């Protein structure tokens, strides 16, 4: 048996030193295990973002300057790009909410054996290439596309309607791609609502409509906010779909960054746009975080 050495005036309990040493070693081991992940994140996220940040403050003469940010304020076209970006993101999110809420409700209340099948239908687009899905919409929506042909055959309208290379096409494509991101957290939140909650509401005298608005909806709202936020933030930086289905008429920030790099090779201006978008996104998340308590779906706490 080992004995602890006690200095005068301070006695130590049996094995106190050895036990606390063991605890410390365990903590160091855990830290050691997560080091690779921390390093990877530092290299692939922090370094590039820092570099971007640095570039945005370097003028055409190689000196520190705010010229890229000044341009953004001075030229109306930049403001328009940001306006379009927020508009498309907001509208896509709203369309996803309108379509996704009933869909998630339907999924959450299906009898068990059907859930798998319908869930597969929701998730299937997730496993197909984004580019393929976007071009598929182009085929469906163009002037001589399936949708126009069909509608004219059954006499819904006489001449082809412009469904693509504009805002309409962009929103249709974006909503389709973003829908699962809204449905999944919402479905999770709805699944957690006990059937007894609704029984209790109606037992206490609430009509089905009141039960929904007073009990069901408030209990599902955390999932709805989480899903809507994911969709909105993903939309802010989205590139492929607005570029293909917008046909150059729907210019969002990501599209603009590509244009600046392709035609002007101006890394500074492109970086500045990226930084503003990043700050705007963080701002949205922060504001949302202040107004809503988040579901575990997003930030891992209840």
């Amino acid at each position, binding site marked *: 048996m080992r004995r602890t050495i006690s200095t005068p005036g301070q006695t130590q309990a049996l094995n106190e030193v050895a036990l606390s040493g063991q605890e410390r070693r365990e903590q160091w081991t855990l830290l050691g295990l997560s080091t690779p992940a921390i390093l990877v994140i530092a290299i692939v996220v922090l370094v590039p973002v820092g570099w971007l940040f640095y570039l945005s403050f370097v003028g055409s003469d190689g000196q520190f300057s705010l010229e890229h940010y000044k341009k953004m304020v001075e030229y109306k076209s930049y403001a328009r790009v940001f306006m379009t970006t927020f508009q498309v993101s907001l509208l896509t999110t709203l369309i996803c909410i309108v379509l996704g809420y009933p869909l998630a409700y339907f999924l959450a209340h299906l009898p068990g054996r059907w859930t798998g099948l319908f869930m597969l239908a929701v998730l299937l687009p997730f496993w197909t290439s984004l580019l393929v899905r976007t071009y598929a919409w182009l085929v469906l929506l163009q002037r001589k596309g399936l949708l126009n042909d069909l509608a004219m055959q059954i006499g819904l309208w006489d001449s082809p309607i412009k469904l693509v290379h504009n805002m309409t096409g962009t929103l249709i494509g974006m909503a389709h791609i973003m829908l699962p991101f809204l449905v999944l957290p919402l479905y999770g939140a709805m699944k957690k609502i006990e059937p007894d909650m609704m*029984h209790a509401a109606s*037992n206490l005298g609430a009509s089905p409509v009141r039960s929904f608005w007073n009990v069901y909806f408030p209990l599902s709202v955390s999932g709805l906010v989480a899903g809507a936020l994911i969709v909105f933030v993903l939309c802010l930086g989205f590139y492929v779909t607005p570029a293909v289905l917008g046909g150059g008429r729907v210019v969002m920030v990501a599209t603009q960054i590509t244009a600046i790099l392709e035609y002007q090779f101006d890394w500074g201006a492109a970086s500045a746009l990226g930084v503003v978008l990043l700050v705007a996104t963080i701002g949205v998340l922060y504001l949302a975080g202040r107004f809503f308590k988040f579901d575990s779906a997003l930030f891992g706490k209840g």
Partner: protein
Amino acid sequence: MDNTTALPISIRSLTKKYGDLFALKTVDLEIRSGEFLTLLGPSGSGKTTLLMAIAGFNRPDSGSIFFGDAEMVLTPPHKRDVGMVFQSYALFPHMSVAENVGFPLKLRGIAFAERKARVEEALETVQLSGLGERGIDQLSGGQRQRVALARAFVFRPRILLMDEPLSALDKKLREQMQIELKHIHRQLGVTTVYVTHDQREALTMSDRIAVINHGELAQVDTPEAIYNKPSNEFVADFIGESTMLPLTQDSAGRLTFGESVVASEAPDPSHNDWSLVIRPERLRVLAKDASAGDQHVMFSGTVTEAVFQGDTAFALVKLRGGATLTVRFGTGAVSEGSRLEAGQSVSVGLIREDLILIPRESA
């Protein structure tokens, strides 16, 4: 609460099938105005199905449910005006305690001031005064149970339903709440239907117990009658501890078990096969020189096991006929049973007034 008028419930030929299985098989049950009636049965017996049918959460296949004179079987749950305490409590986590309790009042259009007063009054009844502003997640299990109860009676329903409301509480709290619920029931005077699978809880709380098995009522009676005069094997076996001895009828018409004469005649001459139900605590250990008299039916055998359990002790006595009786006795200094040891031969007696004879069901 003064303006609560309790309503009787009348259930007539209520039937509900799940596939080929009867959850309820033409159930007829009259629940008296203001009484505390417990639906008691094993899991899957149909007791919860019956309660949910009364609340309106499941639709029976046929039959009637009357509250007073009003047929309710087609009425949706939100128009039935019955209070209910759920097993899971089903408290709304996005509302405070006061908002939960005030919810049914708000739905009934009761103005803020009166609502506030009635919520406070209800919380006082369940001994939660001053906790109105708390969130549901800040409450202990017992407190949640009380909030669920307050919410169920605050709108003065004339019928109160409870679905195993105490099953999530630990034993001590559960026993305390049983007495409290009984007390609140007396205070409110509301017709109460209570579901449990715990026979002790049912015996403790009820005015009457409806024992239910395989979707049918096995017996409906007071706790004393259910325990002392079970009318069939299921009730005798399900409620309390019991040993069942099959009796034979001799040429003189007497019912006997081995050499013990249990009864001089069958309670009902139309039935031949009878069983004797013996409650362990009704048996007495007799002195060595005792003989069967007019007061006792006597059984003799050998002790195979003697077990001490604190408040009581029991011994297993193997009779010469082959059956084994359980004898339960006190553990006090003068208890006759406390000196029993395995291997000892012993005689036990059952007072004739405690005889329970039930017709044996042919297997």
